[in-house]
């Protein structure tokens, strides 16, 4: 379970949505409602189509800082401390999730407090205080997250962030949503004010409400949010991500007891694509997140005990805190395929990379059998039902569907699509999108130069066990240990962790 620490929560998590329909002048505010009159709770997700892609060069991290200063600050009439005191007896707060494409403010409140809560929440959004002390507090947290937390204390997140930056080098997705140390250091409160004024506009808001709210409540929400700044979003140009030649590697060097591995490549498939659910099923077969269903998990952890977990993804993924389910409201116009190996012993790093690539190539070459297809479909038909258990999650999915312009009932649409899929659909999607030849790899490790030599030399990386293993595993190990790695010396770059996210 991920541990969340005080105000860091504000930076790392959060959501809430509003759908204004009454925006003066601009396009109508989009409103997504999931009423549940008997529920004692009301969920808010107020989403802005604003993300790190809207930051100018040199201001990387500005959206995150703006969002956290709004959610972790005061209103025109109340300071931050007074806001905390008002929320405290309600046992609620406002969290924010600042992403690449969208930023969403999230809260859940008991209906006993709905009116008082909304008065305060809407004031935070519409008339943020932008106090210098609040700004400094949030800036410190963001800088520390970049300098110390990501670089030093969370190798798995470090690997994931480094892989995204690598895959999307030179692209609007190419920097962390937390920005760079150099840029965040230079940001001022005036930058935050200006970004809020030009980007957090009423034409970019989507209102999401779920639960036991009164009938006229959505109208009041729309009216309140109509007071957001006016303006028009400038279109973002999405270049094609750089093509990859062979296995390109970044080794992030830092002291540590194990090596974290992430790898991937861009794919031209997202939720609105015709092939999405076919590819989704194939990926579940390869590496469904935090389950023993996937081949990667069964072969790397189950058969060989290499690490704690091994998963794969066909869209940008984060985990909903406290669950193993996908976080909602992190949509992307461009997606990438990735494999995540949880830390492995340094001596098994090359073997584990080879094992993962070999599994990927096997899938890309031969696809699924009829039995594998049917069992994965059966699994997903049941498992994905669990993703919509809470109202807040259903609301999150509905907002994402709005982003992708697809059926608002995403899980329902998934159920129908899965039932209609054929093995041919799935394997056609596999053959079209997946491959193991041109891949970017990030490894967070201790002795990067030695690892580089091991990769470039293509020397066999045999594995030994202290226990008897079945002959089929040992035979497979021999193939894995000599799996050809198309890594050229010039395609391996070593970066000390202390230099990551610097500029």
């Amino acid at each position, binding site marked *: 379970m991920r541990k969340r620490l005080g105000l860091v929560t504000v930076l790392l998590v959060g959501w809430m949505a509003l759908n204004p329909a009454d925006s003066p002048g601009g396009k109508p505010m989009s409103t997504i409602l999931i009423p549940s009159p008997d529920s004692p709770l009301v969920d808010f997700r107020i989403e802005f189509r604003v993300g790190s892609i809207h930051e100018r060069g040199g201001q990387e991290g500005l959206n995150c800082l703006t969002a956290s200063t709004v959610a972790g600050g005061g209103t025109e009439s109340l300071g931050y401390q007074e806001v905390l005191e008002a929320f405290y007896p309600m046992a609620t707060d406002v969290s924010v999730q600042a992403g690449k494409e969208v930023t969403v403010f999230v809260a859940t409140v*008991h209906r006993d407090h709905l009116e008082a809560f909304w008065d305060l929440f809407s004031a935070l959004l519409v008339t943020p205080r932008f106090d210098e002390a609040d700004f400094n507090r949030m800036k410190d*947290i963001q800088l520390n997250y970049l300098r110390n937390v990501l670089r030093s204390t969370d190798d798995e997140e470090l690997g994931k962030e480094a892989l995204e930056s690598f895959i999307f080098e030179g692209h609007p997705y190419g920097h962390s949503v937390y920005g760079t140390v150099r840029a965040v250091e230079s940001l001022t409160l005036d930058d935050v004010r200006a970004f809020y004024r030009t980007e957090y506009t009423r034409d970019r808001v989507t209102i999401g409400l779920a639960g036991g709210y009164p009938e006229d409540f959505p109208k009041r929400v729309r009216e309140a949010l109509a007071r957001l700044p006016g303006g028009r979003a400038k279109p973002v140009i999405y270049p094609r991500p750089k093509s990859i030649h062979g296995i390109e590697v970044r080794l992030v060097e830092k002291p540590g007891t194990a090596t974290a591995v992430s790898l991937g490549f861009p794919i031209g498939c997202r939720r609105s694509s015709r092939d999405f659910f076919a590819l989704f099923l194939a990926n579940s077969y390869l590496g469904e997140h935090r389950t023993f*269903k996937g081949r990667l998990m069964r072969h790397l952890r189950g058969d060989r005990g290499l*690490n704690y977990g091994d998963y794969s993804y066909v869209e940008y993924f984060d985990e909903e805190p406290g669950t193993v389910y996908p976080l909602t409201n992190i949509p992307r116009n461009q997606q990438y395929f990735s494999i995540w190996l949880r830390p492995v012993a340094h001596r098994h790093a090359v073997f584990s990379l080879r094992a993962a690539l070999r599994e990927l190539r096997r899938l890309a070459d031969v696809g699924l059998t009829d039995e594998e297809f049917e069992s994965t479909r059966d699994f*997903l038909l049941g*498992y994905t039902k*669990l993703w919509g258990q809470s109202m807040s999650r259903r609301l999150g999915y509905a907002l994402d569907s709005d982003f992708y312009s697809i059926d608002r009932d995403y899980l329902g649409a998934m159920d129908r699509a899965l039932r209609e899929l054929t093995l041919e659909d799935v394997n056609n999607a596999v053959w079209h999108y997946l491959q193991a030849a041109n891949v970017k790899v990030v490894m967070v490790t201790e002795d990067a130069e030695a690892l580089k030599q091991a990769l470039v030399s293509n020397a066999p990386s045999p594995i030994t066990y202290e226990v008897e293993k079945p002959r089929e595993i040992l035979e497979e190990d021999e193939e894995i240990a000599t799996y050809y790695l198309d890594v050229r010396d010039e395609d391996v770059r070593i970066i000390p962790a202390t230099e990551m996210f610097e500029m």
Partner: protein
Amino acid sequence: MVRWQAGPLCALVAAAAILAGAEAGMAEVFPYPIHEEILANGLKVVSIPYDSPGVVAFVTVVRTGSRNEMEEGLSGFAHLFEHMMFRGTEKYPQLVYNDILDRMGADHSAFTSDDYTCYHILVSSEQLERVIEIEADRFQNLRYTEDEFKTETGAVLGEYHKNNSRPFQMMEERICDGAYTAHTYKHTTMGFLRDVEDMPNQYEYSLEFFSRWYRPENCVVLVVGDFDRAKLMAAMRKHFETWKRRDFEYEIPVEPPQTGEKRVEVEWPNPTLPYLYIGYHAPAFDDRSIEMPALDLLSQMVFSSTSALYRELVIEKQLVEFIFAGAVDHRDPPLFTIMTRVKDEKDLPVVERRIYEALETARRERVDPARLEAIKSHMRYRFALGLDTAMSVAMTMAHYLQLTADPQTVNRVYEMYESLTPEDIQRVAGTYFDEVNRTVLTLRYGGEG
């Protein structure tokens, strides 16, 4: 998976009627009917109908955690055993067991803490009897070879390394090791690294571990959601009543009172802001005693986001990034811990001093009744906001079942919160926060080389 234990309480649940009732000092806080039955072999079955159409949570609480690891050199075994439970039986080998649950689309996993191990499955209601059958089978007939055992210890070592790339695991490990001399809370649930590394050699002990603790009298089965109770109980009797008791007798070493402040310095190999982590020995959980509930409210009073200390250190002077404190309910005396991340190492002494002064103020001055009422409201609504799915209801109840095996404990605890007075809070502030009772850990970057 090893569960982190942070904050004074697990997130809890609620509903409107309950809250109104609590305010009137009348109704029980837990808003759903609770049914409790005990099978002939001593296995307790707690079932709770909850509005989750077509979905049910099936949870087995084994009231054994790292607390029960009494033998030297064998820490971390409860957690390892959680892994072993997925290795299958003769009837349902690992792949078959997983395939059955996968085809149901079940979400199934487990976690281990100091006091218990929890196996949880969320599945469609129509599959409930089948789930009962395969769970009853693995709790009675688990089988694995020595080689399979050794392979799984590799995954556990991997989990240790995963956790240890973050400072929290290291701090937890070191403060427990420092604060305790005799009790098994001296090691964390993950265990000491030396013991985790030695696990491959402990196959025989693993068989004994299963035989001791995976017994009906030491477990509670909890079912929450959409189910037919008559069918549930018929299936439980059919599949679980063959499980044999053992009534293993054991004694956990008692921790003697601490007699002087202890200090622990931890060097972190990579750049980090310094952490200050302070632990005081606190009382064991007892659902007839106000000690832990009073400490929960005290932690809110002194350390929550609306406290004077938080205002000073986080908001005004901005000396620390965050601060939080509390004790998690435990069967034996746990630590009440205070954790903060300090922005500048030179401020460590002043932050530490201000924490002690805030506790001294709580000892000297009674909390304002209006402030106490706000704290109680916070506790009630936090409980209410946490009960939004069948599994969250189950996890809330599991927390109390592992402590006492009594589902009414949750109601007793929240009744105690409501009844607490400023004098109660002041008294616990004066009881547990002496200098001689504390262990102070600092973690900071060790520097180049």
